[in-house]
């Protein structure tokens, strides 16, 4: 939305111009990310095998280009499961967990940030205290402990991964709402007697949404990495379900004779986070006019 405001008039007349201003690298990142999401979403249709289908006669087959057969393009793992199919399904799990976690952290942090900025006083102090505590406890450490003691479930995993970063949304929201409260448009809304919820939801929220979305985009790679790290330790997504991190963690023991189990899932994780980083950087530069580049 903001992009339109900033774009010169002729960009509106000629819509392709705005597309052309996307740098080639960012465009490539968007296509790559889109491809990963598409393949993950269509896992049921395009995966040649199920993610748990075992073929004990075809264990540890190398990829086709390393002397394997075309039946298993990226080889098989220790139980004869097709690595390519598992990557599709694993990517789906990883992306879904990361999306769910981002939504959870975003909602929690933004809500608390609004509450702190609206009520001030001891409520604000309490929220900022929670923010300080969260910032002092690396999520990976907390999540490791909780998952190991509390046992594992997918909702719990999503909540724990989502806790990573809520304090950043809360800080950001509080700061932006506080400065918005002093701004002219909010003052005028108050003067004309608009109800408070309307000012916050219909006027302040849309105005700070840009910054929040950028923050979410910048957070997303870290969220994916956190999920994959937990699954890497065997504490995240549990078998028979699979995730990219779990495949990487499993493949770690077979690096010498079956490198493909770990490496391909690692490459997909890396390409996903790299694309998100490139897109997030570009969005931030587009939406933050104070940044000189």
């Amino acid at each position, binding site marked *: 939305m903001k992009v339109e405001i900033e774009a010169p008039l002729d960009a509106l007349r000629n819509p392709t111009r705005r597309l052309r201003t996307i740098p080639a690298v960012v465009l490539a990142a968007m296509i790559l990310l889109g491809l990963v999401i598409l393949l993950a979403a269509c896992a049921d249709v395009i995966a040649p095998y199920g993610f748990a289908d075992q073929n004990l006669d075809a264990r540890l087959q190398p990829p086709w280009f390393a002397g394997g057969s075309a039946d298993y393009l990226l080889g098989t793992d220790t139980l004869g499961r097709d690595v390519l199919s598992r990557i599709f399904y694993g990517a789906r799990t990883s992306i879904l967990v990361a999306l769910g976690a981002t939504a959870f952290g975003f909602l929690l942090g933004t809500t608390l940030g609004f509450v702190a900025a609206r009520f001030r006083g001891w409520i604000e102090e309490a929220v900022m*205290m*929670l923010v*300080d*505590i969260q*910032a*002092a*406890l*690396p*999520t*990976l*450490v*907390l999540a*490791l*402990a*909780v998952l*190991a*003691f*509390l*046992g594992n479930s997918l909702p719990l995993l999503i909540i724990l991964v989502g806790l990573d970063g809520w304090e950043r949304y809360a800080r950001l929201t509080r700061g932006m709402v506080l400065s918005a409260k002093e701004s002219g448009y909010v003052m005028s809304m108050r003067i004309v007697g608009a109800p408070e919820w309307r000012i916050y939801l219909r006027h302040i929220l849309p105005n700070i949404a840009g910054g929040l979305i950028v923050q979410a985009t910048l957070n997303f*790679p870290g969220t994916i*990495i956190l999920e*994959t*790290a937990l699954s*890497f*330790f065997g504490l995240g997504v549990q078998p028979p379900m699979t995730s990219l*991190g779990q495949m*990487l*963690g499993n493949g*770690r023991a077979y*690096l*010498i004779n079956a*490198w493909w189990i*770990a*490496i391909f899932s*690692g490459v997909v*994780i*890396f390409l996903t*986070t*790299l694309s*998100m*980083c*490139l897109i997030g*950087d570009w969005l931030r530069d587009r939406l933050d006019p104070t*940044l*000189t580049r």
Partner: protein
Amino acid sequence: MLRFVVFRLARALITIVGCATLAFFVLRMAGDPIIALLPADAPPEVMERYRTLWGLDRPLYEQYVRYLISLAQGDFGQSLVDGRDALGVVLERAGATLILGGVVIALALLIGVPAGTFAALRRGTPADHATMTVAIFGYAMPNFFLGLLLILLFSMQLRLLPSSGYGSAAHLVMPALTLGTAMAAKLARFVRTSVLDVLGQPFVRAARGKRLPELAVILRHVFPNAAIPVITFLGFEIGLLIGGAVVTENVFGWPGIGNLLVLSVARRDLAVVQTIVMAIAATMVLANLVVDLAYGWIDPRVRLAGGPREG
């Protein structure tokens, strides 16, 4: 200044107590450590005995108050596995983690600051783009994957470095690279932005105008002014460094606190896990306290303004 320090100290203490509270309740609610620790067929009398021994038969609030009191007395409880003092078990491992962390921070500073400054001074040139491209690759790379790639290359293919262990400089190379790459990359990007901000200031033009050599302009005028955001960044980065250390230490079998954490979590050694969480929280709070105080030392304006939040 004194009021500022006292205020910061009080806030730090409250945060640490908050972390202790959180760790206590989350881990206690997570389940009965006795069931996890004793064999499933242990007779009920034995379970009761251990429960009384460790005070787990008391109501939760009483356990919590006792826990806080013993914390204040410096007693972190005993390892449920071998009955040793939990703090001692953790401190024993601290050395390895501190060595790794120190080398990583040094590595990140040595690579990140020159790279970021270089890119800022050559802004918009291919050299700038190349540096920043390398940086974004570095920080998008998950550390556990980088670690595996390094093992595959240096230990298995080239057979140059040991894939795990502790004790010599060769053991340190791959863990430090694994953990340091992302930090150096982020630092380079951050330094670039900070230096660019400062380069646009009038006093830099003035310094250049009076024909000060470029190196002197950078060292005397640009760096001190670009340092504040960079130091804040380092304070925040400590948390990610600790999280990353947990992963890296486990990939490379580095006998530090991160390694102990995963081990203790698997053994359900409540006291040790709690102590590690406390130690990490205390480190983070302390690091940010140092950052806050360092502001005042580097930038006199902060002291006058009364606090860095406003500054």
